[in-house]
C-alpha cells in the first residue's frame, strides 16, 4: 500500500543531498494506476508514509523533497504566469478530480490529503467546489460555536505563543 503513495514522490536518501530542484528529463512521471482503496487503507497508508517522510533527513524542508516545489521565497519575484504553468503542481495531482455529489467521503478526503503529501494540487474546479461547499457550511454557523466534550476527554493544545 505504501508503494502506491510513494510512487512519483521519489523518497530516497539521495534527495537530501541533492540541491537541484530539476528532475532528470527521463524521470518517471507521477503516473500511478489507482485502484480503489478503502478509507481505512488510505488512512493507514498515509500515516505510514508520513512516518517515512519524518524519518528522512530532509524532513522539515519538504520543498527539498520534490522537483516541482511549491515553494517560492518571499524574497524572490513571483513567477511569471508561463513559468507557473510550466511547473504547475496540478500536474502532480493524483487525487480525485471532482468531488462526488452529496456528502464528502472519508476516502475522498484521505485521497486529497495523500495528493497534497505527494505535492499535488487539486484541479481548480474541484478546489472551487470544495470552497463553495465550505462557505455554505460556515454560513450556517454562529459567531461562537459551542460544543461539549466528556469530562474524561483528554485535551492537547498545540500552538505558538506569539
Amino acid at each position: 500500500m505504501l508503494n502506491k503513495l510513494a510512487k512519483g514522490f521519489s523518497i530516497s536518501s539521495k534527495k537530501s543531498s541533492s540541491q537541484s530542484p530539476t528532475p532528470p528529463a527521463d524521470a518517471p512521471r507521477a503516473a500511478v494506476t489507482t485502484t480503489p482503496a478503502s478509507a481505512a487503507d488510505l488512512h493507514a497508508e498515509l500515516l505510514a508514509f508520513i512516518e517515512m517522510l519524518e524519518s528522512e533527513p530532509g524532513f522539515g524542508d519538504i520543498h527539498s523533497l520534490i522537483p516541482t516545489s511549491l515553494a517560492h521565497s518571499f524574497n524572490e519575484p513571483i513567477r511569471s504566469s508561463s513559468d507557473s504553468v510550466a511547473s504547475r503542481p496540478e500536474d502532480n495531482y493524483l487525487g480525485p478530480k471532482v468531488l462526488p455529489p452529496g456528502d464528502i467521503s472519508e476516502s475522498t478526503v484521505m485521497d486529497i490529503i495523500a495528493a497534497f503529501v505527494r505535492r499535488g494540487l487539486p484541479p481548480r474546479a474541484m478546489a472551487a467546489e470544495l470552497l463553495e461547499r465550505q462557505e455554505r457550511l460556515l454560513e450556517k454557523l454562529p459567531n461562537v460555536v459551542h460544543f461539549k466534550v466528556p469530562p474524561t476527554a483528554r485535551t492537547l493544545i498545540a500552538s505558538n505563543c506569539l
Partner: protein
Amino acid sequence: MPEGARLSIVGDLHGQFVDLMHIFRRHGFPSPERCYLFNGDFVDRGDCGVEISLTLFALQQLYPQSVFLNRGNHEERSVHSVYGFMQECTAKYDKDMYDAFSRVFAQLPIATVVNEKVLVLHGGVDEIMTMEKLMAAPRAQYV
C-alpha cells in the same frame, strides 16, 4: 463526543502542511472520537496555506461534529494580502480563487466554547467585549 474521546486544539499552522501531518501522525486523524479545534492562522508565512485550508475544510465537511475552525487575524484579507497567502494562492491558482478563499475565511466563526467553560479564540478579547457582543459581531467585516 463519546467517552474516552480526545480534543486537540491547534493554533497557528501558518502554511506549514508538514506540521499538520506531523500533528495527525502523533495524535491521529480527526474522527468522531478524535476532535480537533483549529484556532486560526491557517495561512501566511508558510508556503502551503492552500493545502492546509483545503485539508481543514474537507475534514470539517467530513466530520462537522468533530472538526471546528476559528478565524485568526491571518484569515483577514488585509493581512493575508500582505503576508504571503495572496501571493501563494494566485501563483498556484489565480486571483478568482484567492477571492473565493477570502470569502470562505470571512465566514469562519470567531470563537468556540468548550463545555460552556472554556472560550477559545485566536487573539483574545479586550475588557469591554462581552459574549453578547461577540455573538452579534458582523464577522465578515473587519472591525
